[in-house]
C-alpha cells in the first residue's frame, strides 16, 4: 500500500471518463428513452381513442339493428293485415258469385217448370178434348166449341 502518482492519474482519468459519458453516451440514450416513452404514451392514447370509437360504433350498430327490427315488424304486420284483407275480399267475392249462380239456376229452373206446366196443360187440354170428343162425338163440334175449349184450357 503505497501512495504515488497513480492517484493523480486516476483522478484525471475519472474526470475524462465522466466527461466522455456526459458528452457522448448519456444524451442519445436518454433521448431514445424519452422518445420511446412518448411513443408509448401516444400509442396508449390512440388505443384508448380506438376503444372509445369502437364502443360508439357498437352503440350505433345496436341502434340500427333495433330500428331495422322494428321496421321489419311493422312491414310484417302491414302485410299480414293486407293478406287478411285479400282473403276476406276473396271470400266475399266467391260468396257473391255462388249466390248469383244459385239465383240464376233457380230462375232457369222456374222458367223450365213453367214451360213444362204450359206444355203439360196443352196436352191435358188436348187429352181432355179428345176424351170429351170420344164421349160426345156427335154432340160436339170442334169449331163450335173452340171458345169453350180454350177457356177450359186456361182454367187447368
Amino acid at each position, binding site marked *: 500500500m503505497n501512495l504515488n502518482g497513480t492517484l493523480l492519474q486516476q483522478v484525471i482519468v475519472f474526470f475524462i471518463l465522466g466527461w*466522455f459519458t456526459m458528452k457522448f453516451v448519456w444524451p442519445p440514450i436518454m433521448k431514445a428513452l424519452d422518445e420511446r416513452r412518448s411513443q408509448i404514451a401516444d400509442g396508449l392514447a390512440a388505443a384508448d381513442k380506438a376503444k372509445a370509437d369502437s364502443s360508439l360504433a357498437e352503440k350505433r350498430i345496436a341502434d340500427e339493428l333495433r330500428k331495422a327490427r322494428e321496421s321489419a315488424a311493422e312491414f310484417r304486420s302491414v302485410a299480414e293485415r293486407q293478406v287478411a284483407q285479400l282473403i276476406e275480399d276473396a271470400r266475399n267475392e266467391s260468396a257473391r258469385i255462388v249466390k248469383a249462380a244459385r239465383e240464376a239456376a233457380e230462375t232457369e229452373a222456374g222458367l223450365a217448370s213453367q214451360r213444362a206446366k204450359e206444355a203439360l196443360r196443352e196436352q191435358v187440354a188436348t187429352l181432355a178434348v179428345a176424351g170429351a170428343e170420344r164421349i160426345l162425338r156427335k154432340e160436339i163440334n170442334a169449331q163450335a166449341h173452340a171458345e169453350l175449349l180454350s177457356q177450359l184450357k186456361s182454367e187447368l
Partner: protein
Amino acid sequence: MSAEHAPNASEYIVHHLTHLNSLGHKQSSLVDWSVFHLDTMFWSISLGMLAIFVLSRAALKATSGVPTRFQAAVEILVEMVEDQSKSIVHGDRSFIAPLALTVFVWIFAMNAMDLLPLDALPRLWAIIYGSAGHDPEHAYLRIVPTADLNATLGMAVGVLLLCIYYSIKIKGLGGWIHELFTAPFGNHPVLYPFNFAMQMIEFVAKTLSHGMRLYGNMYAGELIFMLIALMGAALAASFSGVLLWVGGIFAGTIWAIFHILIITLQAFIFMMLTLVYIGQAHETH
C-alpha cells in the same frame, strides 16, 4: 517461478502483491508522487476505455423503436442510475448522472478482473518480460486496479473535488466558507474552530472511507484467491496434499461465485456513495 526454485507461499503472495511500477522495484517510501503503478494505470485506463466503448456503442445505435437486447440492457443500467441520481441529487444532474453511470460500469469492469485466473496474465507478462531480456522473476503485474489504493482513492478524491465544486456552485464561495464555520454546531464565534474541525474531519473521513472501502474489499478478495491458489498448489503425493487440492476446487468455486456478488455490490456502493456525497454538497445545512 521457474522450476529450479519454486517460490514458497510467502514469496508467491508477495510477488503477486507487488506492483509493476516506474521504479522497477518495490516503492520504499509510503508516499512518492514521482512513482507510477504502470499496471494499475494500464488496466484502469484500458478498462475505462472498454466501459465507455461499450456504452457509446449502445448510445450510437440507440433507437426509440424496439431496442436490441444489448440496448435494452444498457437502458436498464441507465434507468437505474437515472432513478438513483434523481432521488439523491436535487439539482443539475447533467454531469453527475453520467458520471455515476461511468463509475459503476468502470469499477465493475475493474473489479471483474478479479475473476480472471489468478496466474494467467502475470504468467503471460513474465514470458513477455523474460523474452525482452529481463529477469522474469521480477515481472510484477497486478491486474485488479481497484485492489490498488491509488486507484480507489484517486476516484474518491475526484468525488471530493466534485463535492467542493458543487458546494461552491450552489452556495457561492462565501456561503460555503460560512457553512464551513457555522455548521454543524451553530453560528457563534466560539464554535467556529469546532465547526471547521468537524467539517474537515467529515471531508477526510468521507473521502478515505469511500476509497478504502472499495480497495479493502477488492484487496481482501484478491488475497483470498491467492490463498485458494496455494491450496491447489499443495497437490503432492501426500494424502493431505490431494485433499487440499480438492478443497481448493470447492473453495475457488464458492469464492468466485460469491465474488460475483461482491464486485457488483462494491461497484454499486461506490456509485451510490458518489451520488450521496455530491447530493450532500447540494444541500444547505
